[in-house]
C-alpha cells in the first residue's frame, strides 16, 4: 500500500481497511459500518459526512482508537490498533491526538486555562502553563482564562475546546460535529478558527459533519450512507 519511497509522499497518519462494526441488538446483529476503507495522509483534511445515524461518530471513534471494530483494521501512526489493548491505545493517543466535540466536553470545575492545561499535564509537557496561555490567546480568550465553562457562551466554550485540542501539538485532530451545538454565525467563526489553526500547525484534521459547506472546506470528503462509503470526493 505505502509506496516504497515514502519519503516523497506524505506518510499515512490513519488508515482503515475493510472496516466493519456490528453490534448485537434485540433483533440480532446490527451493522453500523460495513467495509469502510480510507487513508489519511499527514497534513490532510478529511470530512466525514452523512445523515444522522449513518455511522459517522462510530467511524471516528474507531479511527481514534476509542473503540475496536468487529472486523477490518485501523492503523494509527502506523500501529495496528486491534493488536493493542485499551491502555496501549491510550498511550498511543497521549499528546499526539486532539479532540473537539459537539458538546464541548470541558471539565466544569476547571477554568478555561486549566481545561487547556489538562492534556498538557497528562502528556507531561514541562512548559504546560505557558503553552496553555499561548493557545488560549490564539483562540482569542486570553481575557477569559480564569472563567469556568459555566461563565462562557457556547462559542467561547468551543474555542477553549479547540485550544485544548491543539495545545499538545498533536499530529491529528478529530472533530465530531464541532458546530452542531452552535448557531450558524458562531459555527462559521469556529470553523474558520479550526481551519486556520490546522493550517498553521500543519495538523491532520478528520472532521465529522452533516453541514455541506463545512465539508466543502476539507480537501477530501467521505460520504456515509447507512454505514457504507457512498463516495469519496477529493477537492
Amino acid at each position, binding site marked *: 500500500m505505502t509506496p516504497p519511497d515514502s519519503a516523497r509522499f506524505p506518510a499515512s497518519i490513519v488508515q482503515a481497511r475493510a472496516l466493519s462494526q456490528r453490534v448485537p441488538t434485540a433483533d440480532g446483529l446490527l451493522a453500523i459500518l460495513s467495509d469502510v476503507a480510507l487513508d489519511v495522509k499527514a497534513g490532510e483534511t478529511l470530512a466525514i459526512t452523512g445523515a444522522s445515524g449513518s455511522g459517522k461518530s462510530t467511524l471516528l471513534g474507531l479511527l481514534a482508537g476509542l473503540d475496536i471494530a468487529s472486523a477490518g483494521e485501523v492503523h494509527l501512526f502506523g500501529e495496528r490498533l486491534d493488536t493493542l489493548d485499551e491502555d496501549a491505545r491510550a498511550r498511543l493517543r497521549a499528546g499526539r491526538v486532539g479532540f473537539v466535540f459537539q458538546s464541548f466536553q470541558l*471539565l466544569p470545575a476547571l477554568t478555561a486555562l486549566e481545561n487547556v492545561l489538562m492534556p498538557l499535564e497528562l502528556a507531561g509537557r514541562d512548559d504546560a502553563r505557558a503553552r496553555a496561555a499561548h493557545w488560549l490567546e490564539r483562540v482569542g480568550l486570553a481575557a477569559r482564562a480564569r472563567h469556568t465553562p459555566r461563565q462562557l457562551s457556547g462559542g467561547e466554550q468551543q474555542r477553549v475546546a479547540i485550544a485544548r485540542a491543539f495545545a499538545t501539538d498533536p499530529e491529528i485532530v478529530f472533530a465530531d460535529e464541532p458546530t452542531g451545538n452552535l448557531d450558524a454565525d458562531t459555527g462559521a467563526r469556529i470553523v474558520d478558527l479550526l481551519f486556520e489553526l490546522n493550517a498553521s500547525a500543519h495538523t491532520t484534521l478528520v472532521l465529522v459533519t452533516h453541514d455541506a459547506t463545512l465539508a466543502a472546506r476539507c480537501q477530501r470528503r467521505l460520504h456515509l450512507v447507512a454505514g457504507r462509503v457512498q463516495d469519496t470526493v477529493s477537492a
Partner: protein
Amino acid sequence: MNFLRLGLWLLGRERASGEWRVLLLALVIGVGSVATTGFLGDRLQRAMRDEGARFLGADLLVTSPRPVESWPDNPLATAHAVEFASMISRGDAFQLATLRAVDDAWPLRGTVRIAPRAFAPGTPGRALPPPGSVYVDPQLLPLLDAQVGDTVRIGEAAFRIAGVVVEEPGQLGGVFGLAPRVFLRGDELDRTQVLLPGSRITYLYQFAGAPPALDAFTRALKTRLDDTQRTIGSREGVETLRGAFRNMDAYLQLTALISLLLSVAAIAIAARRHALRHYDQAALLRCFGATTAQLRVLYAVQLFTLGLLGSLGGAALGALVQQALGGLILPDTLARLPALGWKPVAVAVASGLLALAGAALPALMRLIRVPPLRVLRRDLPPLPLSAWLGAAISGAALLILVVAYARDLKLVSVFVGALAALALVLALLARLALVAGRGMRTVSRGPLRFGLAQLLRHRFDSTLQLGAFTLALFLLGLLALVRTDLIESWRTQLPPDAPNHFLVNIAPHQQDAVAAWLADHHLQASALYPMVRGRLIEKNGQPIADTLPPEDRGDNSLRRELNLTWTASLPANNAVTAGRWHGDRRVAAPARGTPSGAPLLRSDPSAELSVESGMAERLHLALGDTLGFRIGDQTVAARITSIRNVKWDSMQPNFFVIFAPGMLDGLPASGIASVRVPSGPGSPMSGFVKAFPGITVLALDKLIADIEAVFARILAAIQLLLGFLLAAGLAVVVATLLASLDARRQEAVLLRTLGARRAWLAQGLMSEFVVLGLLSGVLASVCAEIAMALIAHRLFDLSPQLHPWLWLVLPPLGALLVGASGWLTTRHIVRVPPMQSLRALG
C-alpha cells in the same frame, strides 16, 4: 506526568464544586460519631473501672495468709493492711471483732467515711485513725455499751474510739458473717501483743495505677501466687455492678456499630453520585491518553486525601464533642483520666479510611473502567464491575470494621445476620410498597399524583432511597428501643423499694423476734435464708481441681468458702435455665456426728442442689454431677438437679449454691435477710442494732445511690450518642437526596418549561418526600420490632414484646425528616427560572 500531583490538583480545583463536599461531610459525621462513641465509650469504660475500684478500694487487691516478701517490679501505688480476729473489750463487755491494721495510704481508691455516731453521714477520708485511737463499726458501740470518745482495750493496749466507720470500700463481696470491723494503726499493732505465732492473719495488699501497668503486674503475679492467695480486680469488686458493666459494654458496642453503618451508607451513596458525575471526566482523561493504571493513581490519591481529611476532621470533631460530653457526664472522673492518646485518633482515622474504601471503592473502580468512547456516545455506561467483586470489597471492609469495633463475636454475628436479613427484607418490602403506591396513584390527584408518579418512575432510585431512609430510621428506632429496654430492665432489676440493708448473722432462735421487730416498724424484708459456709472440694468423687483444665483451676470460687443455703422455694430474681427446681423434695437429715469422731460424709443419692449458671460454666459443672462440699469438719455431697440464672444486682441475698431442704439442717447456720429502710434522718436501724446486738447490719443505701448515679450517667451518655446517630442518619438522608438531585433538576426544568407552576412543583416534590418518609417509617418499625425481638432475646435475656409507640413515632418522624431535608435540598430547583436552568444543564 505525575498523576499523584494531577489527582491532587483536580481535587483542589473541584473543592469548590461541591461534589466532594457531600462525601467529606458524610465522612466527617461518620468518623465523628464513631470517634465520639469510641472515645466516650473508652472513657466510660474507664470510669466504670474507676467505680469498681472505688467499691473495691483499689484497682487490685491481693490477700494472703502470709506476708508477701517480694513483688514483681511495678510502678503501682500500694497500701498494706493486716486483718485478724481479736477480742475487744470495755469494762466487762467483750466482743469478737475483725481488726484491720492499716497504713496511711489505705484505701487507695474510694474513701472511708468516719462519723461521730452511728447512722450519721460522716466525712470521707483515709482509714488510718489518729495515734492512740481506733475507728469502729457502729455495731460495736451497743455491744460494748460505748460511745465515741470512750476507751476500749485490744490485747495489752488501750485505744480511744475516734469515730465510727459508716462506709468503707469492699463492703460487699462475701463479707457476710464477719465480726464487726475495727480500724487501727499498723504502727500500733505491736502494742496490742495479740498477734502470736500461729494466729490466723490475712495480709491485704492494695495496688493502684495505670491499666497497662496493672495488667502486666497481674500477669506477672499469677504465676507466683499459690492456692491460698487471691487476687481481686476492680471488675470483680462488686458483683452488683457486673450486670451493669456487661449491658453497657454490649450497648456501647452496638451504638458504635450503628453509627458506623449509617455513615458508611451515607458515604456509599455520596461516592456513587460522585462517580456518576465523573464518568465524563474519566472518559475524557482516557481519550487524552490516560491509562487505567494512571487513572487508578489519580482517583486513589483523591480518595485517600479525602479520606485523610475527613477522618482527621471527624476525629477532631469526636475529640471535641466527647470532651464536652465527658465534662457533662463524668465531671469528677474526667479530671483523673489520662488525656486522649494518639491511639484512638489513629483508630478513628483508620476506620474512616476503611469505611471510605468499603463504601467508595466499588464506585471508583467502575469509574476507572469508563470506556473512552463515551466522549462520543454520552449514554455509554462504564463496563460493569463484577457485582461480586464490588460486594466483596465493601463486605470485607465492613466486616473488618464491624469485627474491630464489636470485638464480641456473638454481637457481630447477630448484627451481620440481622443486616443480611434486613437487606433482603428491605428490597422486598420496598418493591411491595411501590406496587401499593401504584394503586394509590390511580385514586390520587394533582401534585400528589405527580409525586407518586415520580417515585414509581425512578423505581431503582426510589428503592435505594427507601432502603436508605428505612435503614436510618430503623437504626434510630432500634437504638431508642434498646435504650428504653435497657432502662426498663434496670428499673425492674432495681425497683424503688429495693432492699438497702442486709441483716447478717441472725441466729435461728432470733428469727421470729427479728420478723416481729421488722413488722412493728413497717419494714419490708426479703425471705430469711439460713447460711452455712463451705468449700467446694469434689465433683463426682474426684478432687474438683483435677476435673478442670489448668487455666480454670484458679477460679475464685475454689479459693474461698461459699455461702451455702437451703430453701424449697426458688428465690425471686432467680430463674432456672436447665433441669428442674428441687422444690420441697427433702431428704431426711442424717444423724449428727459419729461415735468415732471421724469426719462424717453426708451422702444420699437423692440429695439435690442447684448451681448458679456462671459458676456452672466456669467450673464445667453439668446437671447430674455430684458435688462435695467441706463444711467445718464434714463433707456433704448432693447431685446438681437445676442450674439457675441469678440477678446479682437485685440487692437480695443471692447464692451460688442452694441445697434442697434437709441436707444441711442441723448444721450451725446463721440467717441472712435484706430489708428496705426508708432513707432520711433518724434511721430505725439504730434501734434494731440495740435490740439485736449480735446481728450485723450492712447499710447499702450509699452503694445503691452510687450504682444509680452510674446508671444515670450511662443513660445521659446514651441520649447524647443518640443525637449523634441522628446526625449520621440525616447525612444519609441528604446524601440520598443529592444523589437524585441532577435528575430532579432536569425534570423540574422541563416541567417549568411546559408550564408547571412553582407551587404545584413544590407540592409534588413534598408529597413525594412525605410519602417516601411515611413508607420508610412503617418499614423501619417492622424491621426494628423484628431486630429488637432478636436482640432482646440473644443479648439482654429479655422476652420480646411489641412497641406500639414505635409505630406512632417512626412514620411521622420519617415524613418530617425526609420532607424537611428533601425540601431543603431541592427547594432551589423549584425556584430557578426555566431559562437559567436550561443553561445550567449545558
